């Protein structure tokens, strides 16, 4: 029982960072119907940027987030303008898979050249601090990571629900032609939306770098997890991404703690397969648009 509860605590604390990564992924899909295979690489690039700011200037990864998100927002807008906008609308969904995979490889190459391929980790002063509450261990870094991810998700929620730009994004997701008829420039929303997705990847990357060691090839593992989370929650749903992340993260952590770490990955994929068999559109597929 102790191991189970410890696993749940760990899973929930880790879920925040995955929810953040996946929310960017699902946002981009919602706006453009583009499955961004470069989202994992963008997260790792965010982690490297945090690593660099930490090692060169001593800036804590959590404090570096405003810098990395702005930089990655600009990168995201540039990727959309350079590589996705030129695609014809009718081919965009299919071709964007190839294009975003190419962007992922390009980013991986740039990261390999810049930071080499050896595994890096961000070791802050509080990296090994932990509290024991009622006999359960809570590491400070995971708690920070969780709180920060929740804060970033809250900012994203407020942006989407309380601003004019957010309304334009949601309108485009829900009814693109109608949004256009009301004066929303879909190309502008797409570019800024892709930038926003990249910015969430940057925030998640800073947190990810605190939690896990990484190298330029880490994005392959990440993107498979992200796609699974997004599929599980329902493509296009931020609420679904959060729930999907909770399921993925908690089930992995519980099985790892209670049974064996070697079973944890498989458990999650079994859940994914079952959900897709019973509900192919994902948990929140039909109400997906509600969340965004």
């Amino acid at each position, binding site marked *: 029982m102790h191991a189970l509860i410890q696993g749940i605590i760990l899973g929930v604390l880790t879920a925040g960072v995955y929810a953040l990564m996946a929310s960017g992924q699902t946002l981009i899909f919602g706006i453009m119907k583009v499955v961004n295979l470069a989202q994992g690489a963008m997260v790792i690039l965010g982690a490297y940027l945090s690593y660099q700011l930490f090692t060169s200037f001593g800036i804590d990864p959590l404090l570096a987030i405003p810098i990395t998100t702005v930089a990655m927002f600009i990168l995201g807008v540039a990727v959309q303008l350079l590589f996705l906008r030129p695609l014809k609308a009718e081919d965009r969904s299919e071709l964007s898979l190839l294009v975003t995979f190419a962007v992922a490889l390009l980013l991986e190459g740039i990261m390999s050249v810049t930071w080499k391929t050896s595994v890096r980790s961000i070791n802050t002063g509080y990296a090994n601090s932990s509290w024991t509450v009622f006999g359960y261990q809570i590491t400070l870094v995971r708690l920070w990571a969780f709180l920060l991810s929740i804060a970033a998700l809250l900012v994203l929620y407020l942006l989407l629900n309380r601003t*004019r730009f957010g*309304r*334009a994004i*949601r*309108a485009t997701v*829900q*009814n693109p*032609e*109608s*949004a*256009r*008829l*009301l*004066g*929303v*420039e879909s190309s502008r929303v797409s570019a800024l939306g892709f930038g926003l997705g990249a910015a969430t990847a940057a925030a998640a990357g800073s947190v990810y770098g605190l939690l896990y060691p990484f190298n330029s090839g880490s994005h392959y593992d990440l993107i498979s997890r992200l796609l699974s989370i997004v599929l599980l929650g329902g493509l296009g749903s931020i609420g679904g991404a959060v729930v999907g992340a909770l399921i993925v993260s908690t089930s992995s952590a519980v099985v790892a703690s209670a049974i064996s770490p070697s079973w944890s990955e498989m458990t999650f994929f079994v859940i994914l397969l079952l959900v897709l068999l019973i509900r192919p559109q994902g948990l929140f597929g039909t*109400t997906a*648009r*509600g*969340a*965004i």
Partner: protein
Amino acid sequence: MDFLLSLQGVIAGYGAGDILKGVDLDVSPGTVTCLIGPNGAGKSTVLKTISGLLRPRTGDVRFKGEEINRLAPRARLLRGIVHVPQDRSLFPAMTVWDNLLMGGYVVKDQKAVRRRIDEAAAVFPICTRRAHDQAGSLSGGEQKQVELARTLVLDPGLILLDEPSIGLDPKSRHQVFASIRRLAESGRTVLLVEQNARSGLAASDFGAVLESGVVRLVATGASLLEDPEVARLYLGAGRATALTMGGITPDTGRSPSTITSEGAR
């Protein structure tokens, strides 16, 4: 007479084919004009050409005397042309209030937007009653009322309505046409496309018959309804069932436009 909207010799289409083959049509300010015609005549294409979703290959589209052929949809919106498409156009997972706010998306002055929402809500009480409900939870008729209210947030010079009664039950249809009349009575100009030709013409000051991409006939709505040839070809058999509801029969006191075989002119 100064027309609010004038189409002259408009040819437009998709790909290599032309759907509109020289459309001439004038719309006077403060009137409701209904475009009728068989399926595939190009009725919706006329509206798309006016709102800028489709650019004419040749011909002129003029709004308040200005040629707007090359303007993007957004620029036309800023000039006061608002287009309500045939399919449900609300954002289903947004509240009614947010949908109304989207109606003023291009308007910089947010105070004006709020004021117009209040004005629109006075005309369409559903907007106040269901302000915080998701638009997708409203019935088809209620959604259409909110769509009409949303057009008012732009303070439009011209409202283009594509098949406003499609998919609605008779009671909701009645309400929609009554609302269109109310818009006209408050000085709005409406150009609507309607498959339900009898109801559309009964709610309109003028009607235009579009066939094979050309306007064949323009007259008052009432005179088109009484025209046996129009009735035989476009209104279907049977007596007129449209708009026996009180108070919304349009003002037919105007002298009928000249009926020609070559359009409005």
